[in-house]
């Protein structure tokens, strides 16, 4: 029999509105599930059980009055610990912010609270969202529910693992170079990175401001649509958020993709991609063809520069954004000196972990006198070429299809070379550089480990990628499988 924690949000929402279950019951089922599996998975930096039950009781009152209901009212959700939650610790997976309690809610949290969600906890992540495995969390790594010796991916690994393990019905993460889609792929859940500017970044602790976007994790495409709907839209507090009208993301989930044009980027079949991943994704693409989509190859000729351009642009922005951690205003502070510069340098030495330091160094180097033109400016020009690749492709195609990650989940500790870890995001990075949207959906298995299928859409075409994802999930069952825990 299906446990309450195994329902999708749209299934549970129906039962809540019909008063067949209460939010308190649904929430308790998730808190019980957290108690049962969290010791093994380690997805959460904080369990907010008292708050969750209080919000569930509020939601039940709201449901009883049948007033002002959202599809997320009374639904247990987990939040990546990089999204500011008022008076609730927001650590960013860092010693630097171990005790930081934001004085305000991120715009996304304000919208979620207004919708009446139940927050069950904050999720673990690579420090300041820098990483692809959660091993760079200052606290502990998260374990993949499909194989506890393996990573869930990252940086939003806690959010992906929480949804995969039934600890939350949906979760939110952030994606700067693949930090939603890659863990989604490795944990067999749906992960959606919206178009840059679709979701407010106000209250999202900044990593690389021209690339960061908040997006949802879900068990199916319909749930992802519901989770995106609530947070999408313009925000006066974020000047980069777009006034572009928000689509109705469930309106076109009709199962039909007949006649849609699907491009398959030739450059995305690179050496180093595991053969099982290639085989599964090719079968997924063939499935779309059988369903009536027109499938053709397309060239994105500057793809090979994506990772390199990203590892200039993102660290450069990070080095500027993380300058704020000086031990003066908030966060960890080295106090054992009277010298201002020594205090600042030691605050940053002891407050940041190795990967964050590495990126600050790389970014500072790329921006420093004598190297700015050769690295940063050149990377920005290459970014233009990558953006133009997509603009040309979307003149001919509705959606582009590829693997989400070159490998299945790798073992904790397996990748120790920083640059090898960076290559985890080879298929996800270009979408961030171009500012377009993308989704990773369950697309197969290899020896019991999930394989992610990525669909990329043009700017503000979230409705299109969700339509294809939903149609695919009507004829496949990968997304309905559960890990043995």
């Amino acid at each position, binding site marked *: 029999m299906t446990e309450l924690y195994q329902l999708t949000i749209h299934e549970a929402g129906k039962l809540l509105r019909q008063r067949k279950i209460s939010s308190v019951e649904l929430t308790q089922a998730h808190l019980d599930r957290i108690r049962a599996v969290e010791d093994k998975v380690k997805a959460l930096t904080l369990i907010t059980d008292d708050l969750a039950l209080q919000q569930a009781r509020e939601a039940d009152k709201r449901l009883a009055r049948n007033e002002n209901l959202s599809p997320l009212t009374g639904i247990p959700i987990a939040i990546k610990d990089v999204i500011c939650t008022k008076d609730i610790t927001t650590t960013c997976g860092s010693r630097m912010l171990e005790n930081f309690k934001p004085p305000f809610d991120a715009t996304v949290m304000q919208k979620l609270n207004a919708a009446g969600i139940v927050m069950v906890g904050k999720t673990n992540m690579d420090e300041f969202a820098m990483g692809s495995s959660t091993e760079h969390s200052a606290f502990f790594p998260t374990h993949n529910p499909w194989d506890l010796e393996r990573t869930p991916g990252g940086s939003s690994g806690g959010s992906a693992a929480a949804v995969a393990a039934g600890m939350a019905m949906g979760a939110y993460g952030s994606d700067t170079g693949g930090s939603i889609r890659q863990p989604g792929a490795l944990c067999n859940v749906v992960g959606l990175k919206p178009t840059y500017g679709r979701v407010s970044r106000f209250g999202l602790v900044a990593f690389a401001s021209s690339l960061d976007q908040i997006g949802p994790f879900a068990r199916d495409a319909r749930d992802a649509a519901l989770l995106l709907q609530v947070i999408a839209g313009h925000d006066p507090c974020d000047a980069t958020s777009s006034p572009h009208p928000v689509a109705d993301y469930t309106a076109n989930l009709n199962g039909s993709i007949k006649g849609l044009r699907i491009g398959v980027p030739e450059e995305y079949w690179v050496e180093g991609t595991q053969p099982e991943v290639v085989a599964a994704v090719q079968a997924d693409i063939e499935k779309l063809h059988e369903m009536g989509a027109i499938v053709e190859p397309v060239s994105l000729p500057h793809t090979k*520069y994506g990772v390199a351009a990203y590892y200039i642009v993102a660290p450069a922005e990070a080095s500027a954004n993380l300058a704020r951690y000086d031990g003066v205003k908030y966060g960890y502070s080295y106090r054992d000196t009277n010298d201002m510069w020594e205090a600042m340098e030691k605050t940053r030495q002891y407050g940041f972990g190795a990967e964050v330091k590495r990126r600050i160094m*790389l970014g500072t180097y790329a921006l420093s006198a004598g190297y700015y033109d050769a690295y940063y400016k050149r990377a*920005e020009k290459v970014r233009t070429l990558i953006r133009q690749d997509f603009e040309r492709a979307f003149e001919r195609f509705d959606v582009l299809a590829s693997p989400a990650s070159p490998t299945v989940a790798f073992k904790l500790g397996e990748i120790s070379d920083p640059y090898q870890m960076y290559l985890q995001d080879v298929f996800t990075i270009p979408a961030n550089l171009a500012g377009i949207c993308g989704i990773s959906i369950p697309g197969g298995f290899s020896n019991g480990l999930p394989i992610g299928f990525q669909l990329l859409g043009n700017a503000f075409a979230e409705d299109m990628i969700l339509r294809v994802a939903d149609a695919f999930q009507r004829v496949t069952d990968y997304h309905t499988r559960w890990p043995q825990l």
Partner: protein
Amino acid sequence: MIDRETVIHVAKLARLGLSEEDINIFQGQLSVILQNIAILQEADVSGVSPTAHASRLTNIMRTDTPRPSYPPEVLLANAPDQEDNYLKVNAVLEGE
């Protein structure tokens, strides 16, 4: 390749304290990363203008309307050290 002095210089620019071990490790790791990033030099970027952001927006204006602000106590709640609603820091000027 970057040398030891460059690592120390960049750390100084970033106000980032590094241990001896950090300096050695970063010298090697940053060199490897930069070798891989060198592929950017192959790209033909002649006549291409840079992309600084992907927001598809320019010059966003809003009305300058006063809004309630936070009380100092709230904003200072996370401060490591404070006095009379001010952040307290080490002396900035030397030789006093």
